[in-house]
């Protein structure tokens, strides 16, 4: 087996040192009747080339080369190539959670920078509120793509002395949409920042909060400190919340989280930075605005009065699954039919445009919807004529 670094002679030599006659001696603690005496029924050992080919086939069966208008919590943005170049370094890829700080300063400093950038993007959460058990939870932009009036909701929540939790699913929106600075806690998905959709995971969930709640917060935190010579260094901190110390009284029960994904997000934020994030967000805004306008010539675009970022809902006359089915023939994946989650929405569907969505693709998709509306209208007219005749 090509991953195993021992020759048969090495194994023999080790057995001899241990004083075992055969490898079976070492498995003697397992009761005989349970020991497996056959091969596992899993695929036979494959060559690297075979493995790559098997997954290439799966890739081809999985929408490779499709142009997609799907968002709804997983977004397709361009990923700068330096992300994979850097996270592929074995020192990041094959290290564990940075428990031994002296030989984990790279990971720890990166986490510290990540924490800083997320706080910058969400802006200082400074207003003090009394912690209460109840809270108000909103998402903005919400599932239908519209931006909530966080300030107004916050005022109501805080007047009633309840906490406001704001969730953000589309991180790129933070480039041009006001951050929810009135929130007490922000729960955010950062997948948009350089993480491939990867059929739904791994993504990068983030919780940000006011300083007063930090000791209740789960997860890994990197903190700045000094070594014995007074040099700046970083450590995992506030470990007394964690399960390996507090056991059943722990408020954090995580060993493995999403560190490498957070590193992707970190590199993405660093690459686009202060100006690029705004310009990127602006392109998303423009593409969605254009698409909504074009669709609006043929169908109703819902929630017209509310500001939106890169998603919007249209209501077609025909079942969106049927329209999407025809579009798929042209290698386009149409918007998400909302009846999957909201039966009351009938034929509404949720469309997303990012900086990667071309005008050509938008125009083609609009063409399909326009055609659908035309044929439904003429079918109706025919049946009216029949009745009249």
């Amino acid at each position, binding site marked *: *087996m090509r*991953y*195993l*670094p*021992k020759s048969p002679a090495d194994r023999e030599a080790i057995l001899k*040192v241990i004083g075992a006659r055969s*490898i079976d001696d*070492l*498995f003697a603690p*397992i009761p005989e009747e349970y020991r497996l005496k056959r091969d596992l029924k*899993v*695929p036979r*050992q494959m060559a690297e080339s075979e493995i790559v080919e098997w997954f290439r*086939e*799966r890739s081809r069966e999985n929408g490779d*080369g499709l142009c997609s208008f*799907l968002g709804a919590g997983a977004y397709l943005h361009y990923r700068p190539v330096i992300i994979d*170049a850097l996270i*592929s370094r074995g020192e*990041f*890829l094959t*290290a564990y959670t940075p428990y*031994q*700080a*002296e030989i984990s*300063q*790279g990971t720890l400093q990166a986490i510290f*920078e990540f924490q800083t950038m997320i706080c910058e*993007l969400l*802006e200082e959460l400074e207003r003090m509120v009394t912690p209460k058990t109840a809270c108000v939870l909103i998402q903005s932009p919400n599932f239908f793509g519209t931006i909530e009036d966080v300030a107004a909701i916050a005022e109501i929540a805080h007047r009633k002395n309840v906490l406001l939790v704001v969730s953000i699913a589309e991180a790129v929106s933070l480039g*041009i949409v*006001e951050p929810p600075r009135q929130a007490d806690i922000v729960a955010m998905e950062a997948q948009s920042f350089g993480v491939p*959709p990867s059929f739904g*995971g*791994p993504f990068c969930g983030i919780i940000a909060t006011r300083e007063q709640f930090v000791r209740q917060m789960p997860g890994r935190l*990197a*903190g700045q*400190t000094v*070594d014995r*010579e007074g040099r700046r*260094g970083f450590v995992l901190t506030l470990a007394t919340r964690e*399960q390996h110390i507090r*056991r059943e009284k722990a408020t954090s029960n*995580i*060993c*493995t989280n*999403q560190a*490498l994904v957070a590193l992707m997000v970190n590199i993405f*934020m*660093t690459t686009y*930075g*202060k*100006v*690029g*994030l705004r310009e990127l967000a602006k392109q998303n805004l423009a593409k969605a605005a254009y698409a909504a306008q074009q669709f609006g010539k043929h169908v109703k675009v819902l929630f017209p009065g509310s*500001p939106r970022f890169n998603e919007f809902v249209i209501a077609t006359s025909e079942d969106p699954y049927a329209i999407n089915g025809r579009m*798929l023939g042209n290698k386009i*994946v149409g918007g998400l039919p909302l009846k*999957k989650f909201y039966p009351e929405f009938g034929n509404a569907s949720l469309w997303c445009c990012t900086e990667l969505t*071309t005008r050509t693709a938008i125009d083609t998709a609009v063409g399909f919807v326009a055609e659908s509306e035309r044929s439904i209208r003429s079918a109706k007219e025919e049946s009216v004529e029949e009745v009249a005749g």
Partner: protein
Amino acid sequence: MTGKIRKATRHVNQNEGLIFEKSSPGKAAWKLPPLDVPEVDAGNLLGASERKDLGHMPEVSEIEIIRHFTRLSTWNYAIDLGMYPLGSCTMKYNPRVNEVVARLEGIANGHPYQPERASQGALRIMKTLSECLIEITGMDAITLQPAAGAHGELTGLLMVRAHHESRNSPRKKILIPDSAHGTNPATAAMVGYAVENLKSNSRGMVEVSALEAQMNEDVAALMLTNPNTLGVFEQEIHKIADILHAKGGLLYMDGANMNALVGKVRPGDFGVDLMHLNLHKTFSTPHGGGGPGSGPVAIRKFLEPFLPRPVLTTKSDGTLGFDYDRAQSVGRVRSFYGNFGMFVRALAYIMANGPDGLRQTTEDAVLNANYIRKGLEGTYDLPYSTPSMHEVIFSDRVQAKRGVKTMDVAKRLIDYGFHPYTTAFPLIVPGALMIEPTESESKEEMDLFIEAMKSIAEEAENDLQTVLSAPHSTRVSRLDETAAARKPVLRWKPEGS
């Protein structure tokens, strides 16, 4: 002092500040293509919701980013550099082909909501992996949704609770051996159960008579790690299972130590009702500095109605799809379908091994742990003489007499070019040294490790200060963790703010 350190040599590494300290207006590492739709006025579209400023987000060039993260990376230790014997973490080789296949276009860019007929590749990967893991564990069904081990435990206990509630027999307690991972009691508490400790016997195993005495109709399940955190196989596992089942309790297995069992024995065959796996341990997906992980939960048939939704199914036309219509499901435990990218890597690992490779891997992992045990026995105290499986636990009893604790030995090991073992765990061994070499270590690497550990034991006798003030070869010396926790500095702030 460095004469006996054979594995590592000091070399120059680059200093590097925080990225914010390199930022200045006008530098950029990005370029967008020209917009092919009309420009918009953000103020018009967003009104009061328009953001005008992005604070202190950095402005740097591409070469600076490459150097920044490359420099940072060189401050880390990693499996790619050498042995990483963190007990319970299974730091094995992370094959590179896994990374290549996870990045294929249709796999990396597959959207979780794209139509099922355009998702057959991803579903086939999930289906094939599920079948392999069911076969490896000897169970009947599986959910791939949980994001890592502790999350798998949570999912498992939610199913345990749903099972008991469906029989109108809600129970209050979870039994947990004192050798368990801290995640087990934390998980039980989060699901709303009371935790009752189960004492280990002098051989490091569950004391069956104690279990018998503590078992009653209030116990929902026993959470058992097998092999346990002493690296010991619970030899009376069949009795344990029988005692639980006789009173309607379930046997949950924490599968963190599955690297000792794959291809040699199947938990489903020895009475386990449900268990989680850690794909980032046993199945080689990279730890990435602390994630992402993946913690599938395999179950016996009678728990199937409670699986998280949606469940992968084969439709009548032979295509694969998701079933959301599951009345007794515990619901979703994760957005979409779990950490799919990890499924791809784990399956690639299983394919590269095949049945013979998986078995050889397990044998080598156990062989390696026993080689290290043999090499260090007599130098370090072995608190339990029971046979070791994939990891071996020593204590610092001998060295502590000189004032050298397990953490001191660990820090000194860094100077010898190794990552430390797990320190001070399991809690039932005072001053524990928990060593898990995995199958990925050659005899040469282990010989260097044994030599290093013996040399440190000698230093503890003859050169005490060198050990107590270690590490000496790292960029920073021991860091002040107390100060970090007392007044947490969790983010950079510009000077003067």
